[in-house]
């Protein structure tokens, strides 16, 4: 009879987080005073489905909280309440709070009650501040908050004790006979009346419910443990409610006293107690306090909305895929199967006159396989809006904190990029945007003085170029001051005083660890850590980052990233009998050379002179200990000029074999990391080839 609800939790949480995002973006687009009912409806729907879902799954804390939000939104929707900035801010805070709660529940941690209570109180303050506040829910909710705060304020009081301390009311064991429903009585109606007396908590015992085949829907197999909490409830009131069903049930009414057994004990006896709120009644929601008092005295400080952005990057292990993509995939697979059976037929009675047919079939198979690979890769592709969508909120929060007027423009949100890239690009982008907000855009007064419009603009732009996705962060702020950067770098000893640097190199200084030009360290940015981390993160994704800036006009930061981390364009090279893959992105050029063209440098190995530049040479044979193959070949070979971490260097290989796309396989899955090698792939003939890690190789060789 019992359904394992936890199997649906993942879906529920995903839906909730999606709903929260929808609510958030809705709230941010709300025009003050002017009510666009469609937007409010969207927000309301989000809140409502979270409430419904969490009620179903027994996350009553969330359900209760959302209920208050819903009340407020409902009034806004009906026009009974003006949409004001403070109200919207409180609602935004509530979205954060809900997210926090859901994350905590998802990670099976305790919900931070004090922060929930704080947000709840803020919400109620908004609700009560209205002249039209008439919601019957309010008193109950208030009580709940009070109670919770009481519990919060008593340190080291364990759950059960706290119940007895501040609860007055009645405990009712209500066990109807099988034919209760046939007499026309509806327990729900009874509970509704009880709820009007005080706060009602119900625990449903379903252990008597028979299996599906024996189930008679007209029989009542369920019993309840009820608890009514409230002052001034007399036993007669309760008896009156149960008057009508007296002959149809077994009942035990007891006052909640210090001696009464706390209901958690009941939980232990009954195999499947399901604690639910009476959610099928339209009456005001009873507040389920029971699941909350995990208020351990661990006074976890309410998290600032500041670090929430970093946390909420939930590790979604599943992905939602457009049905169109799946359909294409299924089509593709069908085609492959057809081609395969066609080929099978050709092969069955093969004779030479069927060669043409065979070739055609193979060509078809090749095309289908490529398409199939493409569509499978497509499934992993997500629109970049998954990342972009959280930035309006970030900009909204920070700009109001900094008293700046800033508009965020999003361009190319539907550009698709691999899921892994989406997940890893978030943190660097947050950092860059914070920087733009804090250092890039000037205060409104300064902007006006500089002859610019008062409102600053940050543009977040994504587009495809080549096999890459480019993400640009463009601001029209004050730009980077080259002289200031230089003097700061010299002051910090990062560069020599009389170094001549190109413009590009000067801008790159901001990526150096410990570099910050901010006169004042704010809580948003300026500590000088971060930009180097940003660059390292982006490089670890196989991308790079560029800065273009004009003093007084603004800054553009462009991030180039590979579209996917699963496939790589590679150049295969031969070293002896071994084949290695050099990532195409890191290759600058290849040169045919003879031994004599290399210059020996004492103690420093070999160099090669390329257009007046001396580049270090790495002999692949030597560094990888390859002894096979024809040694005479090393008299002449191919130099592959590669760039790794901004440094140029040459790899001496025997031969260039060909370019191909390779699927990256991890060596670590079954072995461990190998220096100079970033992974492995499988070649057309089924053998393994190692993929070179160019920056690693450069590091390795210089040791």
């Amino acid at each position, binding site marked *: 009879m019992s359904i394992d609800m936890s199997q649906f939790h993942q879906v529920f949480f995903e839906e909730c987080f999606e709903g929260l995002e929808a609510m958030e973006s809705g709230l941010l687009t709300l025009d003050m005073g002017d009510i666009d009912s469609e937007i409010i409806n969207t927000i309301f729907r989000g809140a409502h489905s979270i409430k419904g879902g969490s009620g179903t799954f027994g996350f009553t804390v969330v359900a209760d909280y959302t209920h208050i939000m819903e009340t407020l939104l409902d009034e806004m929707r009906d026009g009974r309440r003006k949409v004001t900035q403070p109200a919207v801010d409180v609602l935004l805070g509530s979205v954060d709070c809900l997210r926090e709660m859901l994350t905590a529940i998802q990670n099976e941690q305790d919900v931070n009650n004090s922060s929930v209570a704080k947000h709840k109180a803020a919400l109620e303050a908004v609700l009560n501040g209205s002249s039209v506040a008439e919601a019957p829910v309010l008193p109950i909710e208030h009580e709940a908050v009070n109670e919770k705060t009481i519990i919060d304020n008593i340190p080291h009081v364990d759950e059960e004790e706290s119940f007895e301390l501040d609860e007055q009311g009645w405990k009712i064991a209500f066990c109807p006979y099988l034919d209760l429903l046939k007499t026309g009585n509806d327990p729900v109606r009874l509970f509704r009346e009880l709820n009007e007396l005080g706060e009602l908590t119900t625990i449903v015992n379903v252990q008597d419910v028979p299996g599906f085949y024996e189930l008679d829907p007209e029989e009542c197999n369920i019993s309840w443990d009820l608890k009514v909490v409230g002052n001034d409830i007399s036993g007669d009131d309760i008896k009156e409610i149960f008057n009508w069903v007296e002959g149809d049930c077994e009942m035990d009414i007891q006052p909640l006293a210090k001696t009464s057994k706390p209901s958690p004990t009941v939980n232990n006896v009954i195999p499947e107690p399901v604690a639910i709120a009476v959610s099928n009644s339209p009456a005001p929601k009873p507040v389920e306090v029971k699941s909350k008092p995990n208020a351990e005295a661990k006074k976890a400080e309410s998290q600032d909305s500041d670090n929430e952005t970093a946390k909420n990057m939930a590790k979604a292990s599943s992905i939602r895929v457009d049905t169109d993509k799946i359909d294409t995939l299924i089509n593709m697979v069908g085609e492959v199967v057809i081609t395969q059976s066609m080929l099978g037929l050709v092969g069955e009675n093969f004779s030479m006159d069927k060669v043409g047919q065979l070739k055609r079939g193979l060509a078809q198979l090749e095309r289908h396989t490529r398409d199939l690979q493409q569509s499978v890769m497509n499934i992993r592709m997500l629109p970049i809006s998954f990342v972009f969508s959280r930035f309006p909120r970030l900009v909204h929060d920070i700009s109001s904190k900094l008293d700046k007027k800033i508009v965020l423009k999003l361009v190319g949100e539907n550009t698709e990029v691999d899921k892994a890239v989406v997940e890893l690009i978030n943190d660097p982008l947050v950092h860059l945007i914070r920087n733009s907000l804090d250092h890039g855009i000037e205060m409104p007064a300064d902007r006006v003085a500089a002859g610019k419009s008062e409102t600053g603009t940050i543009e977040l732009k994504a587009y495809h170029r080549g096999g890459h996705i480019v993400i640009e962060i463009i601001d029209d702020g004050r730009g980077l001051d080259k002289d200031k950067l230089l003097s700061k770098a010299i002051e910090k000893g990062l560069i020599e005083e009389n170094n001549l640097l190109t413009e590009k190199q000067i801008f790159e200084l901001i990526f150096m660890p410990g570099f910050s030009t901010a006169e004042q360290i704010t809580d948003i940015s300026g500590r000088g850590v971060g930009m180097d981390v940003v660059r390292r993160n982006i490089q670890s994704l196989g991308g790079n980052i560029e800065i273009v800036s004009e003093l007084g006009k603004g800054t553009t930061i462009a991030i180039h990233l590979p579209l996917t981390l699963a496939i790589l364009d590679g150049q295969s090279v031969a070293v002896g009998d*071994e*084949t290695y893959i050099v990532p195409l992105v890191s290759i600058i050029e290849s040169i045919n050379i003879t031994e004599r063209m290399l210059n020996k440098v004492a103690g420093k190995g070999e160099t090669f002179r390329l257009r007046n530049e001396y580049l270090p040479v790495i002999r692949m044979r030597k*560094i*990888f*200990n*390859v002894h096979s193959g024809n040694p005479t070949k090393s008299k002449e070979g191919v130099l592959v000029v590669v760039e790794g971490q901004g440094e140029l260097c040459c790899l001496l290989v025997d031969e260039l074999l060909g370019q191909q796309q390779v699927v990256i*396989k*991890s*060596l670590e*899955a*079954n*072995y*461990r990391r*190998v*220096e*100079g*090698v970033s992974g*492995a792939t*499988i070649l057309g003939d*089924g*053998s*393994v*080839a*190692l993929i070179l890690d160019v920056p690693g190789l450069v590091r390795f060789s210089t040791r």
Partner: protein
Amino acid sequence: MTTDVQSNNSRVEQFLTFQLADEAYGVEILKVQEIRGWEAVRIIPNTPAFVKGVLNLRGSVVPIIDLRERFSLEHCEYSPKTVVIVLCVEHGPNQFVMGIVADAVSDVLDINLADIKKSPNFGSKIDTRYMRGMHVYKKKMIMLLDVDKLLNPDEVEGIESLV
């Protein structure tokens, strides 16, 4: 599998035995994923000599370890009889697939756990950490290996530093 009803002393496990330079070794059969003929592998640079290289095993890249070299036995040329035993190694929460090169696979034996003798202490010179014990079968000694300890990737690296 073994029946737990029986007392601990009479539990029987199956072992796959193989030849390595006239010596008989055995591994738990439940660790064995497959047995295949020797084929050329791709060398991994800068690894200990007993790591022969990696092999493409239906799309996953699997390292191959030569047990002769691992146990400092004399090297012998790979022949058509040479086999690779692909094993599933558990290390902490992770599972690794690795192959070991053996001269030939001999038999699958049911060995009563009570019949496994503790490996003798050879003194400090010979490391018996990777041995599960010894078993005498038809007057021949079979060394039973503890695959998880023998092939754990950390060990593979650690040995390198010892050499």
